[in-house]
């Protein structure tokens, strides 16, 4: 396979063509935070916490590193002041549905980026459900061949994860979603909690 050379945070990195920036960074030992990414699943690109700045042809852009394929000569910066600010805001926004007492990776990152998880929660916009709608559980469920026991329902701010009707029995049989949830939301599996009916 063809290899490309790029620069991440000043470090020259060689990566296989077709890899994403996130994968290349990881191999080079550079950490980029993620919430909706799982190395065993296709990238989904919805939490946007993995954004980085890239420079191409003298113009810089912000992209989600989990989806952006590496390119020859690409210059990537993963921790500029702007990126740090954006990540902090995203964590604060995620807390609206996740709740200020959210656990898991969200809490760890909030500490790291100095995010105030109660900043928007205090506006009382919504009853927190501990879910950030990253879709890891849903995608895991699909890939686990349980024929979509859970899925997203609703659009926009009405979006949530629900147990599909008639799939209660299938849902009892594994705990895959439990293991990938970045908020510590999924505490048990089975027909009733934690997933709401559609």
């Amino acid at each position, binding site marked *: 396979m063809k290899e490309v050379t790029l620069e991440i945070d000043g470090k020259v990195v060689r990566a296989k063509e077709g890899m994403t920036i996130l994968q290349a960074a990881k191999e080079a030992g550079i950490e980029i935070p993620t919430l909706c990414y799982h190395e065993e699943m296709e*990238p*989904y*690109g*919805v*939490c*946007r*916490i993995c*954004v980085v700045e890239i420079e191409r042809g003298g113009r810089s852009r*912000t*992209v*989600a590193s989990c*989806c*952006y*394929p590496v390119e020859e000569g690409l210059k990537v910066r993963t921790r500029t002041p*702007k990126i740090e*600010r*954006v990540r902090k*805001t*995203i964590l604060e*926004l*995620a807390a*609206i*549905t996740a709740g200020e007492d959210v656990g898991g990776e969200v809490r760890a990152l909030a500490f790291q980026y100095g995010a105030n998880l109660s900043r*928007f929660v205090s*506006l009382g*916009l*919504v009853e927190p459900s501990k879910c*950030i*709608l990253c879709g890891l559980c849903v995608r895991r469920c699909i890939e686990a061949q349980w024929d979509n026991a859970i899925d997203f329902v*609703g*659009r*926009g*701010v*009405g*979006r949530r994860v629900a147990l599909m009707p008639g799939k209660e029995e299938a849902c009892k049989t594994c705990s895959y979603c439990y293991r990938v949830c970045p908020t510590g939301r999924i505490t048990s599996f089975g027909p009733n909690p934690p997933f709401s009916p559609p």
Partner: protein
Amino acid sequence: MGEGMRERLRGPEELERWRERLRRERDPSALLFTVNVRSACGLAAGSEEVAKRLEEEVEGRGLAGRIVRTGCNGFCEKEPVVTVYPDETFYVGVRSEDVPELVEGVEKGKVVDRLLYQDPVTGQRIRKASDLPFYRHQQKLLLSLNGRIDPTRIEDYIAEGGYRALAKALFELTPEQVLEEVKRSGLRGRGGGGFPTGRKWETTRKAPGEPKYVIVNCDEGDPGAFMDRSLMEGNPHSVLEGLIIGAYAIGSHQGFIYVREEYPLAVENIGIAIEQARECGLLGEDILGSGFDFEVEVHRGAGAFVSGESSALMTAIEGRVGEPRPKYIHTAVKGIHDKPSCLNNVETWANVPLIILNGAEWFRKIGTEGSPGTKIFSLVGKVNNTGLVEVPMGITLRKIIFEIGGGIKGGKRFKAVQTGGPSGGVIPEQYLDTPVDFDELTKLGSMMGSGGMIVMDEDTCMVDVARFFIHFLLEESCGKCIPCREGLRVLDRILTDLCLGKGKEEDLKTIEEICEAMAEASLCALGTTAVNPVLTTMRYFGEEYEAHLKGRCPAKVCKALTAYFINPDKCQGCLVCFKNCPTGAIQGEREMVHVIEQEKCIKCGICYAVCPFGAVEKLSPPVAPPATYGIKAKKEVRK
């Protein structure tokens, strides 16, 4: 009609022969009425009744006249419109009861003056459409046939030169030459992004993978925009012809026309167009005997604003929920089922036949260096002449609003114009002389978008405007990514609070932080551009945000920050407001100064509207000197 059954055309010569026959059969000096029936706006205005009445009347009088049901003429403000040929008399606001007089006039060779457009400035009646200020400054390339042909009859389109460009492309040019011509023309995508069309085509053409798809995006969902709708309703063949030519250049044999469900007439008309084109051998296998095959399918969208985003639209065509997906590899390379897919909006495709027929040089002479061609805008809001406007790029905003649009309604002052739909920005008065093209609007923090243009007058509150668009986008967001879904939710709350007078000092900083996160990190353009209305109103009307923080709405729009009071010096004690108040909030007696009880007042503004003496005043902040009951009204001295 003597046009008979449609036959399959087996070559460009047969197409030309048919066209000549159609033209011969149409005596240009014959009597002809056109009514804008095949358009949603015309139908709503009652044009079908007018057309039926015309038919009865023409037949009843034994006149040899033909009635053609056309698409929208653009002048939505004055519909239904009837044009009488050959002398091109243009009647506006025609009701079915006006028809007998109109036809009698035609029979006797007289013009019915009262149905002609009256210039509001000079008071003069104008007979021909082309002399109207509304049309005079326009340059109609794409819309020229909209008010002339019946979109449900391919013969009408053929007679006007339709499919000639397709024949030229297929028989005189190689796909590479067609592509080259479009590239040289400098045509940029009319959907909003302004990406060079030829380059997009080339990307799809060169991308590995078969089959390749071509797609028409007719999912216009911007409030107040109807360019794509009108074109699809009024001249669907022009879009179809452009699509087939594009498919030929790109090497595609399958197309999709994505039309939102809310456009039933557009769906119907394009369906008819496809069927007729297929009958004539202009679509399907071996088009015009050239050996080129192309099929097309209409996909009815569920009518979500976000489905107009290219990756979301393609996901919808695949049969899944129309949500965007990360597309760092362009959809032109990996689109529908990960195959190369070239998507352009309705107006972009409709430009293609013109470019192929007249050449890239001709096209480049219209508009500006960086943005050649014309652009259709839907001009709405507080402007006298609302409607569809096609102008060369580079025309100033002032010319569009004040000359074509006829200025601001009710003699009010212009305040701002919002371009580019909900994700565009507002542009204040000092930039009215900016030439309109893709790059200039972007420089001002707004954008071309698909061409919505909302004119706002002095009675518009800019914080309220930002709130309106953010609320619209909040309801239209798919909710997939965090910055867009949650960012819009917080922005909506903060802007609503500002309008309610509950804003806090730190809100402006919070808005900026959220806007930055949304613009930088959202998954698709709905999120990244949603900040434009907020950022531009803050940039150009920052003082209004400050005023809202202090409990004042300078435009006196936000209800929580305004109240109505009666000026005791002007009140004549006439009881008009008293009688009209729906909540009984006004206390008053004849010849005594009236008072509004603020607790009962719902701020509907009826008293303000009905007071003949201008005694009712709207104040922001809502504080007025305490009025006392029981004072005798000071009588105005009438001279």
